[in-house]
């Protein structure tokens, strides 16, 4: 009886502790979408980044669009460091997902941009979005919101799924 209670509390505790930042996955045909995550937005910030990993065990495809109720548009961007200059550009025509490959959207590289977000993302929130692929079709995913970028105190969490 007493033991059962302990187990129950331990389970509850671990769910509370790890639930929101646990790595999560979504599947669409031969595409696997690994741990979509975002970051808590700063006051007055209007854009949020989105990161995820796409593992394709099938033929070549292309991520051509993303929609979310939380943003007017979601764009696919590429960030590049050119010396000391950060270069940003939107990917025209989406992001190629070659056959049998893994494409990672992560800070400092390809990423999604949630534009004109009216309700800033808060840590531990889940942001619903739909990814649209040229061939495989669309899949609903959820981005788990981690701490604000650069918040070293919590950085360990945002490393999940990388």
């Amino acid at each position, binding site marked *: 009886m007493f033991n059962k209670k302990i187990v129950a509390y331990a389970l509850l505790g671990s769910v509370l502790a790890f639930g929101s930042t646990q790595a999560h996955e979504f599947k669409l045909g031969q595409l696997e979408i690994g741990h979509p995550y975002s970051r808590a937005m700063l006051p007055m*910030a209007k854009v949020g980044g989105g990161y995820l990993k796409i593992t394709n065990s099938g033929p070549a495809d292309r991520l051509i669009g993303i929609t979310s109720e939380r943003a007017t548009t979601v764009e696919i961007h590429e960030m590049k460091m050119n010396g000391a200059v950060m270069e940003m550009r*939107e990917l025209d025509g989406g992001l190629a997902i070659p056959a049998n490959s893994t494409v990672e959207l992560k800070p400092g590289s390809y990423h999604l941009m949630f534009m004109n977000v009216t309700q800033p993302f808060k840590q531990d929130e889940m942001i619903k979005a739909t990814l649209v692929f040229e061939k495989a079709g669309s899949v609903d995913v959820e981005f788990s919101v981690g701490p604000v*970028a*650069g918040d070293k105190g919590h950085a360990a969490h945002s490393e999940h799924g990388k």
Partner: protein
Amino acid sequence: MTTKNPFMLIATALCTIFFCVLVGILFFTFKDEPRNSRFNAAFSLVNDQGEKVDETIFKGNPSLVYFGYTHCPEVCPTTLFEVAGYLKALGEDGASIKSYLFTVDPERDTPEIMKSYVTAFSDRITGVTGTAEEMRRVVYGWKAFAEKVPNKSGGYSMSHTMDLFLIGADGRLKGLIPYGADPDEAVRKIRSTLL
């Protein structure tokens, strides 16, 4: 004096190579070092309280200057978090340092937006905005880079310099802290160049 000694020829060749390498190293070192340049531009902008600021803010106290914008999901917040960390690490020693975020996107970044954005990091960082034209004077004045990159949706992103500029109380550039620098190293650099 003809080359009687064959070693002389080799020695001369070695000396020439050594000299060339030396000049090369010097050249690269200088290229990497910030030109100890003085800021010569004049500008008129507003801080996050809506008060006018001009080129005199770079004089009289050391400052940390960053060019970024609030529609920046990763690099800018990371750098500003680090700046807040440097100021904390310096404590009383760094009390004379002022820190500024000059927005490379003054069109969207109003003083109110700047105010709540920078204070999320530290009450020691001041946001500066104004007209795009006046902002360009500051960016060019420090030989920084900022460029608007239009998106097909009609919006835009900004490409910009990621370095943090260390400016002395004399209004001269004393050093740069690159993006992703080691925090301890950065604090040491601020101490040695600005304090």
